[in-house]
Each structure stands twice: as structure tokens, then as C-alpha cells.
């Protein structure tokens, strides 16, 4: 790879930067256009703190999804795991268990769900798509079963739990109202930091990338592929459960389907992020950009009063456009 790259004509080398940064440039253009259309509201600190809070749940799922996608795997069960985690915590709150018990059981469910995914993929040898499609259905069924299909809300949800999604660090005042740096954003940034350290700065992370490059070669080189893959799925499950708790806190309720939308958006965010990488590998900072693109489009298009169905089509089109042109340019290389 490296040797081949040095043989590239200088003209193409110049374009490489542009090719890698195309998604980033596109993102900046989106920001500029939204700013021009909503001059007084879009490019403001409160709005961006607002966006950061809105995407925090998706961000945590997408960061966690990045871990398995580094190996070329998927986890389709993250959305229903998020729903299940919210339901478990809410049911324990309803049973008047302490806050910590509800949260720990929900996170434990994420680890166990991830363990099941990891065992199926790593040791039983089912493809991730099929294995996690199966567990998606199982987790979703469990969420319905435990909750009896109903939404758990109101007095069952302690105020300290739902309050988390509304608090933050005071960082000033705007129009005589306190401006908060949202706690949800802080939590998402902490998860980002941990996963960045794990993937980019540890042997474990480098081995996951090695598995993604060539699992067989990694195995022959002495990497314990099965165990590492199992752990990766557990971490993704843990991330999904964390996001489920954040979601439940934000809506002060738990519903057996509420996490369902997170899975496809998370995969989309990772793919958008991959267009930034020369090798087309997922990196968690790229995923962050992907998440921001989705969140900023939602926010800006709402402010521009674009019909919500048109918005969906645009977002889908932008994902396909970015990933298509990135893969075309890589093929033409």
C-alpha cells in the first residue's frame, strides 16, 4: 500500500487531500448555507449546545458501533438494546429500587446482550448481520414482554433520573437565561474520549483494525481474534445500553420501541465518517463528524421549515452521495 502510494503522480497526491476532506467541506458548506438562511439563530452557541444535546444519544450509539465496524462487523441490535435498557431501568424505578440499581442492571443487560452477540459471531461463527438481526428481535421482544407493551412514565420515573437530561454546567447567560453546557453532551464526550483512547492509543484498538484489515492474517500473527471480537461486541452493547438510559432520561419515560431509530442512524454516521479516512476505515472522530452532519441537517432544515419528509429524502441522498463519491474516487485511484 505505502509503496504504491509513493508512486502516485503529484497531481493525484494534491487531490487526495480534497478527496479525504470532501465530506468535511460539504459539512462546512451546509453550515454556511444554514447560517445565511437563519442569520440570527443558527450559528449561535445556544443552538450548537442544543444540537450537541440532541445528537448525544445517537453519538454514543454510533461511537460504540464504530468499535465493531472497525473489524468490518455490524451490530443491528443496538436500537432494541437501547429500548430494553430503558425499560429495565424504568421497571426497577417503578419497583422503587434505588437509581443506581436501575442504571447498573440496564448497563449489565447491555454487557450481557453484547456477550450473546459476541459469542454468536465469534465462537458459533454466525455472520454479524444474521446474529444481531436475531438478537435485535429477541431484545425487542424482551422489552415488550417486560413492559407489557406499555410506556412507563410519570411518577414511575424519578425526577433525579429525568433531570439528568436537563441539567448541565452553567457557562454564562443569554438573554438573562442561564446557558448550560448539557450533561448529556458531557457524557457523550466522555464516551468519545474513552473509545478514542481505546481504538487509537491501545494495542487492543490496533488489533481490532488488524482484524478488520485481514482477520486470518491477524490470527496467524497471534492475535486472539475470537476473544477480542467478543469483547468488542460487549463494549458496543454497553454503549447501546448507555444511550438507552440517556434516551429514557430525555423523554422521562421508557417505551419498548423508543430506541429503534438509533441503529440505522448510527450506521449511517459511521459510514459518513469513513469517507474521511484514506483507507475507508471507521475512526471514532470521523463518526463524530457523521453524527454532527445528521444532527445539523435535522436542526437546520427544521429551522428552514423544510418539510419533514423532504428532509428524510435529503439526508438519505446526502449519505448515499458522500459514500458513493468517496468509494468512486477510491476505485479510480
Amino acid at each position, binding site marked *: 500500500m505505502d509503496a504504491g502510494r509513493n508512486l502516485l503522480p503529484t497531481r493525484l497526491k494534491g487531490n487526495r487531500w480534497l478527496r479525504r476532506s470532501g465530506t468535511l467541506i460539504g459539512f462546512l458548506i451546509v453550515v454556511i*448555507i444554514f447560517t445565511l438562511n437563519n442569520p440570527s439563530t443558527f450559528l449561535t452557541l*445556544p443552538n450548537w449546545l442544543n444540537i450537541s444535546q440532541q445528537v448525544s444519544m445517537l453519538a454514543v450509539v454510533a461511537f460504540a458501533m464504530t468499535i465493531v465496524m472497525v473489524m468490518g462487523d455490524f451490530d443491528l441490535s443496538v436500537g432494541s438494546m437501547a429500548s430494553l435498557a430503558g425499560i429495565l431501568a424504568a421497571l426497577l424505578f417503578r419497583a422503587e429500587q434505588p437509581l443506581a440499581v436501575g442504571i447498573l442492571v440496564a448497563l449489565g443487560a447491555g454487557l450481557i446482550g453484547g456477550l450473546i452477540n459476541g459469542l454468536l459471531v465469534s465462537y458459533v461463527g454466525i455472520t454479524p448481520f444474521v446474529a444481531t438481526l436475531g438478537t435485535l428481535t429477541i431484545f425487542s421482544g424482551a422489552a415488550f414482554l417486560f413492559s407489557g407493551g406499555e410506556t412507563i412514565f410519570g411518577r414511575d420515573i424519578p425526577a433525579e433520573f429525568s433531570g439528568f437530561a436537563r441539567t448541565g454546567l452553567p457557562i454564562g447567560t443569554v438573554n438573562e437565561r442561564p446557558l448550560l453546557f448539557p450533561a448529556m453532551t458531557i457524557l457523550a464526550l466522555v464516551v468519545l474520549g474513552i473509545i478514542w483512547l481505546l481504538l487509537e492509543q491501545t494495542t487492543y484498538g490496533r488489533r481490532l483494525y488488524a482484524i478488520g484489515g485481514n482477520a486470518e492474517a491477524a490470527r496467524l500473527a497471534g492475535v486472539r481474534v475470537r476473544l477480542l471480537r467478543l469483547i468488542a461486541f460487549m463494549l458496543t452493547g454497553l454503549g447501546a445500553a448507555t444511550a438507552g438510559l440517556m434516551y429514557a432520561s430525555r423523554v422521562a419515560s421508557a417505551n419498548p420501541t423508543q430506541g429503534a431509530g438509533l441503529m440505522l442512524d448510527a450506521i449511517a454516521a459511521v459510514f459518513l465518517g469513513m469517507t474521511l479516512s484514506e483507507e475507508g476505515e471507521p475512526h471514532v472522530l470521523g463518526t463524530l463528524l457523521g453524527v454532527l452532519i445528521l444532527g445539523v441537517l435535522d436542526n437546520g432544515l*427544521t429551522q428552514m421549515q423544510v418539510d419533514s419528509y423532504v428532509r428524510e429524502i435529503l439526508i438519505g441522498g*446526502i449519505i448515499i452521495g458522500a459514500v458513493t463519491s468517496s468509494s468512486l474516487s477510491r476505485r479510480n485511484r
Partner: protein
Amino acid sequence: MRRLSVVLAVLALLLIGGGVLAQDAPTVAVITPYLAQPGTQFVVEGFQTAAEGTGWTVNVIDTAGDVAAVISRIEDVVNQGVDAIVINVDPAQVAAGLEVASAAGIPVFGMDAGSDPLLVTNVTSNGYAMAAETATYVADRIGGAGRVVMFVFDPFPPVQKRGIIADTIFANNPDIEVIDRITPDVADGGIADSRAKMEAVLAANPEPGSISAVWAAWDQPALGALQAIEAAGRQNEGIVIVGIDANPQALDAIAAGGNFEASVAQDFAGIGAATADAVARVLAGETINQRVIYVPTVLVTGANVAEFLGD
């Protein structure tokens, strides 16, 4: 470069689309996760029709079932500085967004949403009145005397309200006896389990005429009871069945002229129109004291079911 041009083309379209928006007329955002459901569609269309003459810019936002996204969109339109927000979702679940709107001084209206101190008002149907309509229909129809089976669902407050009214009306008729007050399992939609429960009641009361009526707090149990009665071959005993909500299946059953005799239809378009009226009053500077505004409902029987089937 190709990617850039794709993005640019999309954005150029957006710019054109965004540029033509009127900036001075009041802007009202209507936010719901449930636009795919027929009832919500009628409500939103009723709102849009009523808003047509006002010159408002109405921005309808559907989050496709995602309740957290409703909070996000409320935050977005608050930031954008809309003049009013209308929601069609349980306000307790989007309280985080309502607090943001309230802090910014933007009025939020519930359109068939639920009551909440953070809403200016909620426009909906009166659950008590709907139950009173069908319970009195039953009491009158059986001449104030007979044995009645009730299907209720107390865990869900809007339906619990209906049951409590029917209880009162039946209790006020000394010759009406409620022989069973059943809470069906609703996990499968409510029809199948209600049918099973009704089959058990029929088995326990084998004498013809031993059951006079079935009062159901919503249509699904009424449909389940109808299936049980027909399957048992007891449809000619004169058992009167009533439901509430007038869903399409119930309307068909009423039109067929069998035991299912009545249900209550909410005036969804009317709820939308009354919400638009409430928004207009507040934008004109009026204060609304009514925490809930009720829009009248209509009792549907064989006499008028044809009007509803046309929809």
C-alpha cells in the same frame, strides 16, 4: 469533486427553497411523532384548513414515531423563534422541550395531547362525555334493566375515565347488574384476548337472555365480544354491544346491523380547527383560562354510520 457537486446541487435547491419563505407572518410549528396514524392526519389537516385564511406559515414536522426527536424539534423551532408551537404527543414525555419553550416565552398548545401545566391549553375530546353517550345508550336500549358485561382498562388514564362514568350510569339504574368488569390483555391489540374472555363469560351464562349488553371502553374489546357471541351462535339473543372511538372495523360492524350497535366518533378535524382557533386567540393577545378545550363527539349508530363510512 463529484461528491462536492452532489452536495452543492442539493444545497442550491435548499437555498432556493429557503429563500421564498415569508418572514413577517406568524410562524406556527406543528410537531408530532404520529402523523402516519389516520386520527393524527385528520387533526393536522383540520388545523391546516383552519389556518389557511390566517396568513400563518404552518410548519408540520413529523418525527416518525421518535419522541425524543419531538423534544429536539421543539428546541430547534424555539431557537428559530416561531410564534407558537402545537404538539400532538404526551406532554409528560416531552417536558424537556416544553421547559425550553416556556423559558423562551413561546406558547405551546396541545392538540389531542394531554394536559400539562406547561401547555397553554389542550384541545381534545371529552372522555367522560364519550363514555356517558354509550353507557346511556345501553341503559336506554335495555330499558334500564338487565345484566351487563363491561370491558375496561384502568391502567391507562384516558380509558380509566371512561370506565368510571359507565360504572356510575349503570349503578344509577337499580335494575342493571354488572355481571363482570373485565380488563383484557391488550398486548395483541385487545381483540383476541377480549374474545377469549367473552367466550368464558358466555360459557358461564348459558341461558339465552342472561346477558343483555356489552359495554366496552374502546372498540377492540367490543369487536372481540362480537366475535365471541357470533362464534357461540348467540347473535340472536339481542345482546347489545357498544364501543368507543368508531374505528373503521367498528364502523363496518355497526353498518352490518348486527349486535354491535353504537360507538362514539371523535371530531378530529374539529380538534384541529379548535386548536387553530386557540392559537389565533393567543397570538391576538388573549389569555386562555381553559386548561382543556373539549370538542364535541358524535354517537355513531346504524342511523348515521353511512356518513362516517364515506370518510
